[in-house]
């Protein structure tokens, strides 16, 4: 009890110092009076009586302090005193304070922003309940595109039945193309993107609707009424966040479709499964309808039972795989998913690894880069504080002489650095906020979860942590140096050139060298990434993305399937292409069902006619169904002849194959290079396919990967899965959009108001993660360089100031201005030389770590290193030049008189 009461009293006393102090004064005065009186009574003269009373009382100030310490909160008093003093000194030295806070804000801001990115993409679990239970179930990666990464509906059923590790397994249709949904509200149909998911999709992920309900098994039955669930974004954008939307029906793709629910804002299909794309609506996938015969179309996601280990999961998948059939009607296809089968096994990996595992290295690099920035910022501040400390050494010596302990002075200096880093952290947090909000709204970067980027509690915690780290890091060295200084030495009028100055200079030189070294590593990293990016842009894609644009085309071929449909389709396409091809500005026009860098699929492997197939052969080439003129519109070189409108349902089947596939077939058919055209292939169904041309390898999935096998069928003989009109024009696509859309709508009034997309954006989209990291690392390298430049400037400029007298004497003794200038510059370059040498060494050792992030660039790329050396020396020379010039302008007479 008494302890609690005392704490309360002390806190009270802390806030009532003036009253208590005057009380104490009065009490002591009374005490002394009484003591003097007693002494007088004993016959001492007044002076002696007073002296004795004082002696018996003890040191007046010490006694008062003891009482205050017992009474209040002394530690807090000292802290407040230090803070007050800090604010006073910092506001007196505004320039220094401003520079220090800005440097720290840049360092801390960059760190907090990158921490938020890393946290969002890598550290935080996916935005689902118990997200660690979710698994991505796919075959090991192969070269044959999406068809080799997906399963048939039959295989999905078997896997779900035979695997034991999962609470449930779900999946979605992997082949939806953008703008596959036409919403008709009276005017021209509005394009939107929808994804078909298996009915239990949301149950497995654990997503709850914001409005209405999500799918049940009944929604996916044969003959079920069409229903749709809207994304939060589309609901807001297209339907004005109508709170009564549930139950309303709209014309979507010509069917009255009922909205049954709205997804929560936290669920964004694109952010998790298809980075960089927006998915507006989700529709149920009927597993037992037509998709049953579509082959591999489903990507599988499972939720594990609690406590299942990864080894069990893999063993379970291996046990289930032999039961999985590509198509139950075709018994030979059973087991084709098993290990050593066509797809070589089923490999479940944590969904999180699938979503962001590829980015781990890039993010680590980014983190390392901002770490280096923070170090540079701290070193810079250390340097600034050392310079300041040198000029304040007399102040501290004076305080020491007046009784301040070493601890007290260190505490004072640490208080200053904490205040500086606190201000830097606040400003840095603001910068980070701006950067994070900007990044979160960059829809064009194909990075998962980027839209959920924000500054959260963890980021705030991180800010505090690095602010404290920074304060201790840059404050302690100057603090200890200062407090440890020799009292007498400092108090004496120690002029420049004394021993301590020299030692100081060494410390500062070491700091600057380490700064240059770090900047050097950053520059090399950024340079290597930049070179890689340029190499990526330089890749021959097999088509020419410049001056080409695509738009998705709607057509009506509701004729019975087969030849009749193909004939009708041919007529429609011929009409469209002749109309569009005649528009002014259009150089070529053609149609395709899947654009490169988008979806793809395979239809098995055609083989040279008359050659026996080997027992085991890789999965087939990716299939594209195209119209005549498509190759010219894309800018893909054709060796042979293009398809024509005469290649109809009745004429012999024709195909084009790419170089890579031609090489493979040639090795079996004993074709010599250049002799592939006019050869005949047989497909799995025994049909003859006449090769009419060999075309360039097209990068179908990514710019950086190798091109796989491709085969092209004419739209008049095979069924396309969609249709994109590609035109080649020298005019800007936006300018063409109106006339092309006009022509399309004239031919088909239900044509969607689809977006006219330059082909270049498809390519940009796939290289966007690389651009993202290159841009950020590049910015950080620039920042590092700037900070290093400030550091060099600070040190050289300070040493010139310190040596003003010395320079004055040398000039008086006949040194030329040229000579003085050269000396200072040489000092600068010597520092830079050390830094660059160390930095180059460290980069050479460290570059191997980022080798996997590079493309077509060696980690020891000479031009990058050479460029870095030139840039650093340039910057160093520039930062040294200004003080050098100042040194050479020193007037010997003034300098000598100054001190």
């Amino acid at each position, binding site marked *: 009890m008494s302890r609690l009461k005392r704490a309360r009293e002390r806190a009270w006393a802390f806030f009532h110092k003036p009253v208590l102090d005057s009380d104490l004064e009065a009490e002591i005065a009374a005490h002394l009076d009484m003591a003097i009186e007693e002494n007088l009574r004993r016959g001492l003269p007044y002076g002696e009586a007073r002296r004795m009373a004082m002696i018996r009382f003890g040191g007046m100030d010490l006694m008062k302090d003891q009482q205050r310490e*017992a009474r209040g909160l002394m530690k807090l008093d000292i802290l407040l005193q230090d803070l007050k003093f800090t604010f006073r000194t910092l506001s007196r030295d505004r320039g220094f304070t401003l520079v220090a806070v800005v440097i720290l804000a840049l360092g801390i801001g960059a760190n907090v922003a990158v921490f938020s990115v890393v946290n969002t993409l890598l550290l935080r679990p996916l935005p689902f309940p118990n997200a660690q239970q979710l698994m991505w179930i796919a075959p090991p990666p192969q070269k044959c595109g999406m068809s080799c990464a997906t399963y048939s509906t039959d295989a999905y059923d078997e896997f779900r039945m035979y695997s034991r590790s999962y609470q449930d397994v779900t999946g979605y249709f992997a082949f939806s193309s953008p703008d596959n949904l036409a919403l008709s509200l009276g005017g021209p149909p509005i394009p939107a993107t929808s994804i078909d998911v298996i009915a239990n999709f949301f149950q497995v992920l654990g997503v709850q609707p914001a409005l209405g309900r999500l799918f049940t098994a009944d929604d996916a039955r044969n003959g079920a009424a069409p229903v749709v669930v809207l994304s939060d974004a589309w609901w807001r954008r297209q339907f004005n966040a109508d709170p009564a939307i549930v139950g309303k029906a709209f014309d979507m793709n010509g069917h009255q479709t009922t909205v049954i629910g709205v997804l929560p804002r936290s669920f964004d299909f694109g952010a998790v499964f298809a980075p960089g794309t927006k998915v507006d609506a989700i529709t149920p996938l009927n597993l037992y309808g037509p998709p049953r015969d579509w082959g591999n179309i489903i990507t599988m996601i499972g939720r594990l039972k609690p406590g299942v280990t990864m080894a069990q999961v893999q063993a379970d998948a291996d046990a289930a795989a032999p039961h999985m059939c590509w198509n139950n009607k075709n018994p030979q296809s059973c087991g084709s998913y098993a290990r050593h089968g066509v797809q070589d096994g089923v490999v479940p990996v944590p969904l999180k690894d699938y979503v962001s595992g590829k980015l781990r290295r890039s993010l680590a690099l980014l983190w390392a880069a901002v770490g280096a920035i923070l170090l540079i910022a701290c070193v810079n501040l250390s340097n600034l504080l050392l310079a300041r400390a040198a000029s304040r050494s007399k102040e501290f010596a004076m305080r020491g002489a007046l009784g301040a302990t070493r601890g007290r002075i260190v505490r004072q200096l640490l208080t200053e650095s904490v205040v500086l880093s606190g201000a830097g952290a606040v400003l840095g947090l603001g910068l980070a906020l701006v950067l994070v909000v900007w990044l979160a709204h960059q829809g064009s970067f194909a990075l998962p979860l980027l839209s959920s980027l924000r500054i959260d509690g963890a980021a705030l915690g991180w800010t505090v942590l690095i602010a404290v780290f920074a304060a201790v890091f840059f404050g302690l060295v100057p603090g200890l140096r200062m407090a440890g200084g020799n009292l007498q030495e400092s108090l004496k009028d120690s002029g420049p050139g004394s021993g301590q100055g020299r030692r100081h200079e060494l410390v500062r030189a070491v700091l600057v060298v380490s700064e240059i070294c770090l900047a050097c590593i950053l520059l090399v990293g950024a340079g290597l990434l930049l070179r890689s990016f340029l190499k990526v842009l330089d890749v021959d894609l097999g088509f020419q993305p410049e001056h080409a644009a695509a738009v998705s085309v709607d057509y009506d071929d509701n004729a019975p399937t087969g030849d009749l449909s193909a004939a009708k389709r041919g007529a429609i396409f011929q009409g469209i292409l002749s109309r569009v091809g005649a528009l002014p500005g259009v150089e070529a026009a053609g149609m395709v069902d899947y654009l490169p860098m988008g979806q793809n699929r395979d239809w098995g492997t055609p083989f040279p006619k008359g050659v026996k197939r080997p027992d085991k052969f890789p999965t087939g080439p990716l299939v594209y169904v195209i119209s005549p003129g498509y190759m010219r519109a894309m800018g893909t070189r054709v060796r042979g002849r293009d398809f024509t409108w005469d290649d109809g349902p009745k004429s012999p089947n024709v195909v084009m194959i790419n170089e890579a596939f031609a090489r493979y077939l040639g090795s079996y058919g004993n074709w010599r290079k250049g002799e592939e055209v006019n050869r005949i292939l047989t497909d799995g169904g025994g049909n003859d396919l006449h090769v009419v041309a060999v075309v360039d390898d097209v990068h179908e999935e990514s710019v950086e990967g190798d091109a796989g096998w491709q085969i092209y069928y004419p739209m008049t003989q095979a069924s396309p899965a969609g249709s994109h009109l590609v035109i080649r024009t020298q005019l800007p696509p936006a300018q063409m959009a109106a006339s092309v859309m006009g022509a399309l709508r004239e031919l088909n009034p239900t044509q969607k108001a689809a977006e006219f997309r330059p082909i270049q954006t498809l390519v940009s989209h796939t290289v966007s993660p690389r651009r993202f990291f290159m841009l950020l690392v590049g910015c950080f390298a620039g920042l590092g360089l700037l900070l290093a430049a400030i550091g060099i400037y600070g040190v050289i400029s300070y040493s010139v100031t310190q040596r003003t007298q010395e320079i004055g004497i040398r000039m008086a003794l006949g040194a030329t201005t040229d000579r003085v200038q050269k000396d200072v510059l040489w000092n600068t370059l010597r520092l830079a030389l050390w830094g660059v040498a160390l930095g180059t060494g460290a980069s050479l050792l460290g570059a191997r770590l980022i080798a996997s992030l590079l493309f077509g660039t060696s980690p020891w790329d000479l031009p990058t290193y050479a460029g870095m050396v030139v840039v650093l020396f340039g910057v160093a020379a520039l930062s040294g030049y200004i003080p050098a010039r100042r040194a050479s302008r020193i007037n010997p007479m003034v300098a000598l008189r100054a001190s």
Partner: protein
Amino acid sequence: MQPAKLDLLQGTLDLMVLQTLAAMGTQHGYGIARRIEQVSGDAVLLNQGTIYASLVRLEQRGWIRSSWGTSDNNRKAKFYEITASGRRQLAADARYWERLTGVMDRVLAMGATPEGDAP
């Protein structure tokens, strides 16, 4: 040679102040300090000022209370007085001291029995 004055053990001053107030009733700081000096026969090394840290400690714990008043020769001074809880604390502390000194006496008395006595 004069014997050196005793250094006060931590906490003993508080106990002395409490005991002084319990014995003398209401008293001002100077009075307390003088009384302790007299009772100890000037054997205690006491800066009189130290008394004020002790007084504020005791008052904050609620063991004594203070008020401004007038001294015998009409001088304004702050007077201290022990409280009920102060008396309880004093009793507890005094018991503790007695036990401690008792133990110390016995321990120090051990030297009286010479070591290695033959039976």
